[in-house]
């Protein structure tokens, strides 16, 4: 098995890292990164999409403020629909709006949307092929004190199983804004998963975003860390720490879980021959499952999956919970080291 050691590549790597980091992400080693909830990006993106296209409408189920579509609601009250606490109604009304040429963004907490209304999404949106934009906020255990009922972890598994559905999970508010604008012009049903807690802003205004494209944020040679959503920041932190152990990690941001950018991932994995996935979701059926399926068929590779391992969360502070459940940079570092040891 090919494994290029850090020493051999140190100079080349350093040069490339500097270049890549300057181009695609902010320097996360800086003392203070700006943080913002990912859903704020959705709010700004939706407002802009509403300005660009009068057919963009917003529907919510009693969660205007907390899903951050209040900016849109204030700017375009005639294009804002409040359905009350009725998530099944939320998506089926969305299907009807789309049937008449609208581009509806239907928003609620992900535990209910798509957690509660999955069958309606399956039949009236996916099978019916209507371009409804499903916004699920409050995903992951970093939802925190509200506890397990509101910490949506199964949404990736639920949504990626649906034919026709596009599944997006932006890594910060800047990327969420771009993703929202891209959704407004995409003709397919889309799902976007958002997080509640403030997340470090790691991408730049000109970092590219395209539905269906994964981006290598950091180039490396010894291990590929494939992350989505809030865990991309932890993956970047882990790559920095691994440097101190003379391990060169490649970090890929998978902001589109489906359709998956298989080529970017296979290209990286053929080079590194070791994979760690990282997500704030159930690894069974989540990103970990997605990558395991891909690699088992096309490029069998040793891998470790960081994420929720077939159990529910609980109340606590976001950072406490991430640490408690092993969803942080330290656990990514340990997993990477273990794989490097196995490669020998």
């Amino acid at each position, binding site marked *: 098995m090919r494994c290029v050691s850090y020493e051999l590549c140190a100079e080349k790597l350093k040069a490339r890292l500097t270049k890549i980091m300057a181009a695609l992400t902010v320097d996360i080693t800086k003392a203070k990164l700006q943080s913002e909830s990912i859903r704020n990006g959705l709010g700004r993106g939706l407002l802009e999409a509403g300005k660009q296209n009068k057919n963009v409408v917003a529907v919510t189920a009693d969660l205007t403020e907390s899903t951050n579509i209040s900016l849109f609601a204030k700017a375009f009250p005639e294009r804002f629909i409040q359905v009350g606490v009725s998530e099944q109604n939320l998506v089926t*009304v969305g299907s009807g709006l789309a049937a008449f040429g609208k581009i509806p963004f239907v928003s609620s907490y992900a535990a209910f949307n798509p957690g509660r209304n999955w069958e*309606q999404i399956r039949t009236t949106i996916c099978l019916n092929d209507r371009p409804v934009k499903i916004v699920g906020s409050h995903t992951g255990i970093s939802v925190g004190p509200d506890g397990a009922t509101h910490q949506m972890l199964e949404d990736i598994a639920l949504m990626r199983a649906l034919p026709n559905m596009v599944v997006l999970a932006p890594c910060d508010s800047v990327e969420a804004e771009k993703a929202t604008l891209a959704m407004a012009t995409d003709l397919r049903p889309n799902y976007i998963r958002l997080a509640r807690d403030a997340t470090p802003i790691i991408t730049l205004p000109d970092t590219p975003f395209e539905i269906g494209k994964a981006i290598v944020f950091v180039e490396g040679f010894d291990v590929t860390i494939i992350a989505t959503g809030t865990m991309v920041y932890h993956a970047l932190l882990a790559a920095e720490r691994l440097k101190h152990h003379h391990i060169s990690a490649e970090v890929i941001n998978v902001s589109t879980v489906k359709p998956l950018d298989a080529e970017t991932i296979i290209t990286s994995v053929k080079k590194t021959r070791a994979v760690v996935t990282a997500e704030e979701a159930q690894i069974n059926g989540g990103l970990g499952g997605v990558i395991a399926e891909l690699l088992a068929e096309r490029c069998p590779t040793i891998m470790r999956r960081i994420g929720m391992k077939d159990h529910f969360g609980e109340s606590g502070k976001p950072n406490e919970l991430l640490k408690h459940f092993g969803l942080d940079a330290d656990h990514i570092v340990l997993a990477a080291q273990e794989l490097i040891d196995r490669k020998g």
Partner: protein
Amino acid sequence: MTVEELELKADTIRQDIIKMLEHAGSGHSAGSLGLADIFTALYFDILKHDPKNPDWNERDILILSNGHTVPVRYAAMARAGYFPVEELMTLRQLGSRLQGHPERVRLPGLETTSGPLGCGLSQACGIALAMRMDNITHRWIYVVMSDGELDEGNVWEAAMLANKYRLGNIIAIVDRNNIQLDGPTEIVMPLEDLKAKWESFGWYVIEIDGNNIPEVIHACALGRSIVDKPVIIIAHTIPGKGVDYMEFDYRWHGTPPGLADIAGMPPKAEQAKIALRELRTLRGKIESEAD
């Protein structure tokens, strides 16, 4: 079309349904037959539509929410000229546009995909809200639902929303045939007082005999004149209407003629034949009454 012509059309559609279901070897008989008069009235009198241009942007919208009764819609569409009548015999077969439950993307003119119950009224609300945003007031949205379907919470979520936004261009039609898959509705899950329920949700309620075509046409005309609130027509129908051994019997809800080993029913090989014979007799009666 005259009333007699419409009644003959409904009889033809019923015969189509029997032939389709027997040929398919599965499907829902009772509701499809019971709705034949309503679908005849819709496609041949009430709806503004163009079979040669199913996407015509001035058309009325017809949503079939209880998708399991789609054989009646397929037959009405074929007879109206949407597609060749011979295609009806492809129902439920591999590669057919006539899926067991309707799929919009396969067959132009269906408006939506349905089968899982309780979703049609919400979609009508979405369409009505979109029409309002576009300042369209002259197009109507008809939604056909079953009574068993009203067990679904999603229906009542939509009922509240339509009242909140005063969606006056929605006309819902409930096929009140008093049966569902497991038995009589009032035993499986009591719905009464149905009229009072809808009225308390802010709807204008009209009750009719849903097997009487002039009553269906009149109720829809009345419904179109009520513009300040959504309208629901509770259409009392006979499940299995036109086939004596099927009428009022919940066991024919999800069973096709030719397949049912049901106590007291004609032998399987005779079921479709007897049904068609009765419908032809009915046809003769309509014709002789018209003379």
